[in-house]
């Protein structure tokens, strides 16, 4: 009998792998943190991620940390469906009787998942938004995809979402390309939560913003995580973001998970040599 039960997972990633190019016979053994490279020296293939596993429950945010090129965003993109994974599985269970193995779904079903189950907030708002379309129009697109048809209802919901993410409503009918970086990110957040998806993936959501603007966006994300009880994955190389948003973390290096830990434990007592290097660099 289990004595302590953590909340059940909503998102479960098992042995996820992504290789660009063709692997040689010993390509996996010859890459990774021990080898100090992600590149298969025989064929030149890049092992961007391998054997990555984690679970996230509702109301929980998991951090993915590591330096550029460690495979963080690759993992995110494989879950989101922006890239096809080479190996492993991703399961979601957003209702008690549901269990979807998302790599087994058809392309149409995968697209539907992105409408109401999994949302992604990208570092670059241009990836998540149509820059030539208005803020209202950008938010309308997931709503219409989810079956909303009534114009005034869509507008009402869009303005509700924009107020929630603190975008001035008098900018609703302006093209997003005329917005500042911070405001674009707020529109992206409004779009992400439009259909109240249970899972949201954040890929460096505040990187590239001014400190003061980043702070506001972070506060907003923290508020949304709490209010909606989201299962969230937060990819960031910034420990202050990780510390503020997450309770648990995985550390990636050369495409592999080298450590998983409670966030406070990772910051105060990192075990893997790479984690120690990363934490001491950030805290110096």
């Amino acid at each position: 009998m289990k004595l302590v039960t953590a909340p059940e997972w909503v998102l479960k990633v098992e042995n996820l792998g992504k290789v660009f190019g063709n692997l040689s016979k010993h390509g996996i053994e010859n890459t990774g943190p021990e080898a100090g490279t992600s590149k298969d020296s025989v064929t030149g293939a890049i092992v961007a991620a391998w054997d990555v596993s984690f679970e996230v429950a509702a109301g929980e945010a998991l951090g993915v940390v590591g330096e550029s090129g460690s495979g963080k965003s690759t993992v995110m993109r494989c879950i989101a469906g922006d890239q096809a994974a080479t190996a492993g599985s991703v399961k979601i269970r957003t209702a008690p009787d549901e269990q979807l193995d998302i790599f087994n779904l058809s392309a149409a079903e995968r697209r539907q998942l992105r409408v109401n189950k999994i949302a992604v907030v990208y570092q670059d708002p241009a990836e998540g938004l149509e820059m030539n379309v208005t803020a209202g129009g950008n938010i309308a697109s997931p709503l219409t995809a989810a079956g909303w048809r009534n114009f005034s209802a869509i507008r009402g919901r869009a303005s509700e979402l924009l107020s929630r993410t603190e975008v001035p409503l008098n900018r609703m009918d302006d093209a997003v390309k005329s917005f500042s970086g911070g405001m674009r990110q707020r529109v992206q957040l409004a779009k992400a939560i439009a259909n109240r998806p249970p899972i949201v993936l954040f890929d460096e959501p505040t990187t590239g913003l001014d400190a003061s603007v980043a702070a506001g966006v972070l506060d907003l994300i923290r508020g949304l995580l709490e209010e909606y009880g989201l299962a969230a994955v937060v990819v960031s190389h910034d420990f202050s973001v990780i510390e503020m948003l997450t309770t648990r973390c995985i550390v990636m290096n050369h495409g592999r998970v080298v450590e998983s830990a409670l966030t406070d434990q990772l910051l105060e007592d990192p075990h893997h040599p790479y984690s120690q290097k990363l934490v001491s660099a950030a805290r110096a």
Partner: protein
Amino acid sequence: MTQQSIEQHNVVLEVRDLYKHFYLHTIDSRCVEALNGVSLSVAAGEHVALAGTSGAGKSSLLKSIYRTYKPTSGSVLLKLDTTTFVDLVSLTDAELATLRGTKIGYVSQFLRAQPRRSPFDIVMHAGIQRGMDRQTAKDAAAHSLQRLNLDEVLWDVSASMLSGGEKQRVNLAAGTISPPQLLLLDEPVSALDPANRESALELIGTLTSQGVAVLAVFHDIEAMRRLASRIIVLRNGRVDYQGSPEDALTNLEGVAR
């Protein structure tokens, strides 16, 4: 201690042969030994004070119990209900995170305030983590902050603006918003003025008498004398001595000074 004797003494926390060694890979793979086989127990309604010189392992012990430090070996048994104990060392991170919010209060010397979060918000969220609904948590947060005399004008400012003593009171208010089963205190009153120190100590004493098991580090002997039911002296990461406050403090005057 056998399972049976744990029950007899109404033990809430049982630490067995706990080791914590740090391997510093970035500094010539040096090994720092913080804890070298600590065994102790704390019963419900008991206040155990940890004493010893700095570097003896007091804070490391508290952090290893809370698992901010991951113990190298040994076990940390926490009582869940009348007959079951769980080993915190063997839990998964997610399981531990669940348990932390509900059963264990940890108050450190410093408030690592999340930026731009208000004292009220911090304390209220501690209540929500303990399983209160929003409204109950709001009321409890107000009560908790009042009890520690934190001026109401400070409740909604950013906690990082507060003074050291104010932060400590926010920390205490969050850790004690409802009586946890186990309360870990790491110099929780070190920055408080005499009047505020008095109400903080009174609060800790009240919680103990309500049945909370307290394991604490205080740097002042006066606080220990007043609150502790037992004192454990650590030395080089081991239990050096334990006894009643009277005996231990006489013994300690020589060690700590």
